[in-house]
């Protein structure tokens, strides 16, 4: 049992400085209680990866991370035979053929490691959308029966089911089959009220009034049509910058000068300066 109720999720995540809303607490609770993977999708920097880390931290579980990228294959995701070691063994001993496909020569990769882990484990499959479609097939298989068959060794079933979190930036649609298997949590930009609280939790020492102003300013920026809307991560960076500058108030001049922390594209900065009536920085 991972969590007893959504309320308990909220308490325990708050204890590790992750502030959850009802959508987060309910889906995190259900993923544990139903034993289903949780797919979190949303723009960059809204706390998808952090959520998995927070679940691990809050429950004292071990975190195993599979980072996806284009070209990720079974050998990197699941397991691989250590063939250098195997070759050495065979060269040393011609009769070693039967031994070289054993535990000793197996290189565990994150998926196998998570399945075999006998302590509570959070398996984070990060940025799933970056991997090729074939990897989804592999995930689907493993997330259906939590077992892995290695031809030379036989079938390995999970000693205990890991708590699985998949993240995606939705740069492409994941397959319907994979989505059906998962619980789904869309993480978007938070309300200004929640973002203020997140900033306060993440940046100790920041005056509450600045956090409030920051959250509202960022909400206003997000309402503009920008190429890249500022994320929570960027709001936090902004707060840290202001704290470092020793600012106790947020005026147009300060915002104009530090806008680059939250808006990375020149055209976005120009657009924001224009729409918000900030003096052009030069």
């Amino acid at each position: 049992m991972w969590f007893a109720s959504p309320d308990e999720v909220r308490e325990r995540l708050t204890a590790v400085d992750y502030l959850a809303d009802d959508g987060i607490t309910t889906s995190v609770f259900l993923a544990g209680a139903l034993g289903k993977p949780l797919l979190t999708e949303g723009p960059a920097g809204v706390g998808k990866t952090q959520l998995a880390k927070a679940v691990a931290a809050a429950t004292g579980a071990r975190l195993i991370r599979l980072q996806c990228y284009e070209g990720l294959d079974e050998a990197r995701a699941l397991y691989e035979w250590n063939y250098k070691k195997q070759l050495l063994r065979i060269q040393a001993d011609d009769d070693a053929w039967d031994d070289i496909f054993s535990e000793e020569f197996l290189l565990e990769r994150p998926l196998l490691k998570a399945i075999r882990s006998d302590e509570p484990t959070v398996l984070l499959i990060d940025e799933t959308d970056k991997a090729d479609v074939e990897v989804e097939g592999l995930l689907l298989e493993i997330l259906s029966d939590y077992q892995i068959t290695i031809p030379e060794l036989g079938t390995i079933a999970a000693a205990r089911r890991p708590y699985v979190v998949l993240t995606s930036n939705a740069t492409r649609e994941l397959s319907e089959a994979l989505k059906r298997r998962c619980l789904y949590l869309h993480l978007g930009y938070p309300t200004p009220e929640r973002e203020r609280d997140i900033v306060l939790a993440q940046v100790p020492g920041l005056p509450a009034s600045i956090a409030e102003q920051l959250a509202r300013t960022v909400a206003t920026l997000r309402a503009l049509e920008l190429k890249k809307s500022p994320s929570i991560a960027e709001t936090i960076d902004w707060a840290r910058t202001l704290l470092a500058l020793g600012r106790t108030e947020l005026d147009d001049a300060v915002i104009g000068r530090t806008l680059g922390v939250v808006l990375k594209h020149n055209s976005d900065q120009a657009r924001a300066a224009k729409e918000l009536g900030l003096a052009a920085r030069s």
Partner: protein
Amino acid sequence: MGTGMTRESLVDRHLGFVQALREAGLPVSLAEGLDAAGALTLIDLADRNTLREAYAATLVKRPSYRPGFDVLFDLWFPPVVSGSYGTGAGERPDGGVDLEHAEVPELRDRLADLLAGDPDDPAFREFARAMVERFGRVQASAGRQSWFSFAVLRALSPETLTARLLDRMLAERGGLPEKIARQQISRNITRFQDEVATDVRRRIAEESGVEKIARSTVKPPIDRIDFLRVTKAELAQLRREVYPLARRLATRLTMRNKLGRRGRLDFRRTVRASLSTGGVPLTTRLRPRRPHKPELVVLCDASDSVSTFSHFTLLLTFALREQFTKVRAFAFVDTVDEITTMFAPGADVIDAITRMSQDADITRFGRTDYGNVFERFAERYADAVGPKTSLLILGDARSNYQAPALDTLKRLAGRARHAYWLNPEPRAQWDTGDSVATGYGSVVPMYECRNVAQLAEFIETLD
């Protein structure tokens, strides 16, 4: 839900709700329906937010389905309405105003207070309900009354409170503080409108049945909205969908150029082979081929018959410009002009589109003429298309009965590595009237592309 539902009525309601979601176009599988039912046994059903989120987590797997889901959830699991205001001691949720009898100015004062505060305050919703009760009932037709949002909003006119609220929130007008205050006010006004609309639907459902209203109120999700019918507000939403799609299209086209992928090493065979060469392990290096830079030429119809579509395709073109090193973009109505430089990366997209419509030389007489466009293109820009180029044509293939110049297009397409045509019209309308869809489609493979979902699908089927 706190409605004291029995087990049976919960099961019925669950089944009805799932059915309604399916009718609204959400692909809820049998297994997912069971997941949701399983979730219901684990949560506190009296907590309506948790119930909503439990359904969402198990059944709603795309953000674009969420608005429709919320509308249906509110209909199937309406909140308990307390009915009376300010009974008992303690703070009255109505802020001391008698919502049943107060005059409009006093109600507007109260609304202003609420709009300046936190919309999650329960009093906010209570107020919206009370206002629907008072102003929302309208004569729909002879002898028949129904509930309407517009009547409530007309009576209270929340937008006209903006100036007053700004004065209250700000010491002086102008600059960023005003922008921020306006943003907050408009968010809360929208929220009030939504609360009113939700309560109106709840009342209609109570009077004439949930199923009926459900069918008429749920709008299609944004990625299913027809390009040719989008409203201005939806267009802004669509713009947000563009960047990920462009990025995806860029990767797909790049991937296609990488011949083969790295295979897994077959260890047993490698070892056996090495034994036959005297045990010398031959390291088989599978070097990935160098992906060559994809080149893209986009030709997009900027005529009025497809104006919302062309706005979208221009955005797509613009976004592609940032993804591809080598992209050339052309716009046309009855003649064609290159717009590549107007769409330089880093430029502001809205400005670029405005500039294009002013500066680009794409119109002679103003009626689309694909034939002339292809002739002019071949004459002036033929060098843009070569054996490494993917050619992408975006338009409805409606050419005002002009000569189509099929041979010219065929030659152009023949020179390209790949050519695709995306048509925003429903397939059923192809070839009707002045459409040359089949003609052009025989030269360049044509795909129906009426909405974001189909565009995404097209991108994924590139192989």
